[in-house]
């Protein structure tokens, strides 16, 4: 196992007799953002859960050398019986950080991410969906993860909130240099955020193409993203993976 690196090699996975992942090879280096795109049901979430250690692989090796991985799920998954502040500070509590210190850190980060002091005192079900997502992102950031796993974390949000959270993610990455492994079915999101895009096709899930983006994150403005996405979507590999008619 190499420190500061996630390496998946020769991974096969099945649920019962159904093969869901076949021969996956994947490496995420420190500081790198890797996006996995693919149609719904192609095994992306399974792959991420395997990488997170939430599932045990059927065959193959997963070596996670990152010390503090954090995961953000498709739903905020805040604990309904904890006030927002306690939810955000939850990871710190698990690490054994003292109450005052963890509350101070969680408050500082939450305020930076657009939550108000009033929100922090509420229970999650009294928050709007957008505020819940912010809280979930803050909960992942507060532990200063060196690997951030994102499971379609932004897919249910409106475009304004999305771009705001993208900016927060970029700022956090710039500050702490965390690596990111994200799965999404939104090509634009992958192109905006990732250094490397892996395309997955379904039944059984396998990686069919890889695409690197050299343009630095800061230079990817909206026009660039639109242009690049339009180009990307014309690729034959992408079209077959998503079942689009090939011209």
């Amino acid at each position, binding site marked *: 196992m190499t420190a500061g690196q996630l390496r998946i090699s020769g991974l096969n996975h099945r649920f019962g007799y159904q093969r869901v992942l076949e021969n996956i090879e994947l490496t995420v280096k420190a500081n790198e953002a890797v996006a996995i795109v693919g149609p719904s049901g192609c095994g992306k979430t399974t792959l991420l859960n395997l990488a997170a250690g*939430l599932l045990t692989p059927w065959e193959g090796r997963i070596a996670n050398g990152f010390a503090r991985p*954090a995961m953000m*799920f498709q739903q905020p998954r805040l*604990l309904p019986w*904890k006030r927002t502040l306690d939810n955000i500070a939850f*990871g710190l*509590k698990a690490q054994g950080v003292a109450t005052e210190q963890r509350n101070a850190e969680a408050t500082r980060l939450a305020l930076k991410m657009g939550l108000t002091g009033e929100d922090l005192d*509420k229970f999650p079900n009294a928050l709007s969906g957008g505020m819940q997502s912010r809280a979930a992102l803050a909960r992942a950031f507060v532990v200063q993860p060196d690997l951030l796993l994102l499971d379609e974390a932004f897919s249910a949000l409106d475009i304004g909130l999305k771009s705001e959270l993208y900016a927060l993610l970029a700022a956090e990455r710039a500050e702490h240099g965390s690596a990111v492994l994200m799965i999404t079915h939104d090509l634009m999101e992958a192109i905006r955020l990732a250094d490397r895009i892996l395309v997955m096709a379904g039944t059984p899930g396998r990686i069919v193409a890889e695409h690197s983006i050299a343009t630095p994150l800061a230079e990817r403005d909206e026009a660039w993203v639109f242009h690049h996405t339009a180009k990307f979507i014309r690729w034959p590999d992408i079209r077959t993976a998503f079942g689009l008619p090939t011209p």
Partner: protein
Amino acid sequence: MKWRSGLIQEWATSTGNYLWSGWGSLASLCLFMAIWTLTAQGFGPLILPTPLEALSTLARLFQAGEAGPEILITARRALAGFGLSVAVGSLLGLAAGVSLTASMMARPIITVLVGMPPIAWLILALLWFGAGDGTPIFTVFIACFPIIFVGAMQGTRTLDGQLKEVAQMFGLSTWMKLTDVYLPHVVSYLFPAWIAALGMSWKIVVMAELLSTEDGIGAALAVSRSHLDTAASMAWIVALVGTLLAIEYLLLEPLKRKVESWRTL
């Protein structure tokens, strides 16, 4: 000291608010009393004394110093059995809920325990423990246990798998998993079970006392029955139900609302 007075104040206000919101129940209680009085007037005091007669008999029993100690004895037995089953039932139920195998194995045993009539346990307890505290406490314990066990087990089994993943992702210690993830969820299954078991314990303890002991409300009921003293019997019943209501509404309900405050928001 400061937090303690704060806690008492909080308890007083929340209980006060709760009772104040209870005018509707008070009205239905008054209606019940009215029907009781009407029926009593129709049948005469030998069959059914009026509520006022029952209450004044109870007051007389209190003044004579008879009611207080008997109520305390009964309450002690009921609460001992109840407390025992809360401790054992909640713990074992939690443990059984965590493991699928354990909960499958527990199911038939629980069915047997629920199906077994308390009177049968009482007979066995009489043989095992004889007359004294042991018999009513054991009978209460064994009758309440399956209710609480099932509540705790169901609560544990129904915890959202997504939250379990969150707990695993953050690398929670077993203790934190228990106190921050499992218990807050399980409590909303446990409280109804505890309240049901508390009601049960009060009924069982009187039955056990009536048949096995020389003191307590049950024994007092046996004496008043043999004297054909309907007013005293009614007075003891009122005392019994009154204590149960007091414990449920002054202790368990405020506690439940405090613990479950996140639900109402």
